């Protein structure tokens, strides 16, 4: 997996949480989310995620990526809060965009280098690492030696060195990660220390190293986006921590017996067959408001009570049927991509518009950052039926009356 793919696998988490609230969320979950403080609009996050992943590929420069994101923001009709223009709270500002782009890319790269370094062969040859400056800045922070000592790190001839699996790395990081970056915008990173030096410094014995390497052979690092679970003492759904987690991650997590389970990118997991079906939650009050006056009251009541599941078989059958039977619509349809599937829960929870459909149906529509439209067809009785991406909104589609899923 590349850094770019790692970023594209992150779940889009639109939320009003600020940075201090995000800091309360366990690092493992935070790392799996693509978020930005106080950005609730997932279509904006989807655009940013795509651009950031492009930058991670190393094919274009930061300036161009910032300009592309600003174009996306304009298309999504984003405007900063009054009085916040050109501050860190303004998504157009260079400072905010650099934080979003550089932090996400640095974390993906930090994780990649860490994971590669923890492979049995690499770890056996280079079991330790030195905390040092990788990127030189105009005004480097001067307090790193103090922070290193406070985290429990030791120095050897003035160098800050520890084994790769030493807990000092997680304690050093404001993100709680054992890999760089260790702070916002920091140019500090790690350089490997070889086996001979690590043994000479007394960090590990040859025998201990063999044991650690054998353990890595038996139990390699888990896939970044799989099998994540965290045990949180006294965690309840209605506790502050539980509420923050559910508010931020929604259906991406499940809380059972004080254990938080990461459920990954629900829709993509269903389509890949790794889980059978996913529930996207009840119809939201926002969606119910948008149905008012457009749908029969009996259907609105049915929507209010429903908690539909998304099922691969049903979805594919419906998609195939409608793609095959409606040539006029097909011309304006666009193939769905991973980012579009990630947005499906957002279309369900917070559509821009809802149109009535035939036979107790409704079309939930949301504009994407690239100026296209995602349309989720839901039946008040049967649940989710189809999902499309089109070039024109349903309200403006020629002959749209014939398009009733």
């Amino acid at each position, binding site marked *: 997996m*590349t*850094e770019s793919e790692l970023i594209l696998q992150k779940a889009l988490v639109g939320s009003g949480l600020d940075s201090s609230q995000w800091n309360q969320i366990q690092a493992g979950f935070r790392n799996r989310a693509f978020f930005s403080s106080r950005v609730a609009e997932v279509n904006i996050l989807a655009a940013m995620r795509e651009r950031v992943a492009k930058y*991670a*590929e*190393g*094919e*274009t*420069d*930061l*300036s*161009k990526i*910032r*300009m592309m994101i600003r174009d996306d923001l304009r298309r999504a009709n984003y405007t900063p809060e009054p009085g916040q223009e050109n501050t860190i709270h303004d998504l157009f500002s260079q400072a905010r965009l650099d934080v979003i782009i550089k932090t996400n890319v*640095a974390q993906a*790269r*930090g994780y*990649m*280098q860490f994971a*590669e*370094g923890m*492979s*049995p*062969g*690499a770890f*056996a*040859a*280079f079991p330790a690492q030195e905390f*040092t*400056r*990788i*990127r*030189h*800045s*105009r005004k480097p922070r001067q307090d790193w030696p103090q922070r290193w000592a406070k985290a429990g790190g030791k120095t050897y001839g003035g160098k800050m060195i520890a084994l790769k699996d030493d807990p000092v790395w997680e304690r050093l990081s404001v993100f709680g990660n054992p890999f*760089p970056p260790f702070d916002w915008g920091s*140019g500090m*990173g790690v*350089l*490997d220390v*070889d*086996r*001979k030096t690590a043994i000479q410094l007394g960090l590990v014995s040859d025998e201990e190293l063999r044991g650690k390497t054998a353990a890595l052979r038996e139990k390699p690092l888990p896939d970044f986006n799989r099998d994540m679970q965290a045990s949180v003492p006294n965690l309840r759904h209605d506790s502050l921590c539980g509420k923050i987690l559910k508010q931020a991650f929604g259906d991406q997590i499940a809380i059972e017996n004080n254990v938080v389970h990461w459920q990954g990118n629900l829709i993509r997991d269903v389509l890949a067959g790794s889980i059978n079906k996913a529930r996207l939650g009840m119809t939201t009050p926002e969606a119910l408001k948008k149905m008012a006056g457009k749908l029969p009251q009996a259907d609105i009541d049915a929507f209010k009570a429903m908690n539909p599941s998304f099922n691969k078989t049903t979805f594919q059958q419906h998609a195939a049927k409608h793609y095959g039977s409606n040539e006029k619509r097909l011309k304006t349809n666009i193939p769905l991509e991973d980012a579009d599937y990630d947005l499906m829960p957002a279309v369900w929870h917070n559509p821009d518009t809802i149109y009535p459909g035939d036979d107790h149906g409704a079309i939930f529509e949301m504009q994407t950052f690239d100026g296209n439209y995602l349309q989720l067809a839901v039946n008040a009785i049967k649940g989710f039926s189809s999902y499309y991406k089109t070039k024109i909104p349903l309200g403006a589609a020629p002959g749209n009356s014939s398009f009733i899923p």
Partner: protein
Amino acid sequence: MHLDLKITVPADILASDHELAQAAGRGVSNAVKRHLVERDSRGRSDGLPRTGYYGDAASGVTTEVSGSRAVVTIHKEGVALHYYGGVVYPTDAKALAIPKSIQGAGKRPAEADPDHTKFALVWPKGEKTGTLRDKETDEVVYLLVSKAKIKEDKTVLPTDAELESAGMSAMEAIL
């Protein structure tokens, strides 16, 4: 850019080919990373503020190991161009813009002056180069050229011998 390593291991060695490739790949990757970090520490010769270009490149060094093969990649735009050299032509503008002041450092002209109100274009007829100047101060913010020739610079990366030595040392460490 990619460095492709193929590891051939003598038959009497106990460590698996795969783990040796992991070690060798990491050794080469470390050598590249250290080299780029050292370059980053030098600063810029044109007097403009540091951009951390080579530090970013060092952070973008990854190793992909498959069987007994390791591929080390540097995920950073322009590294291969500097290493191999070449001619750069504008693709989405009429000219290449080379920053000459802090106003333009790390930014394309379209980002530094999105409304086209701050800079004045000065390109005398028949001249090979032009400039974008600050309208208020007349400071040259960008030098404009129709193409730029980048000289081959093999010092961007460690030498082949250094890379080979790094890979070999890493393998020897786990034998």
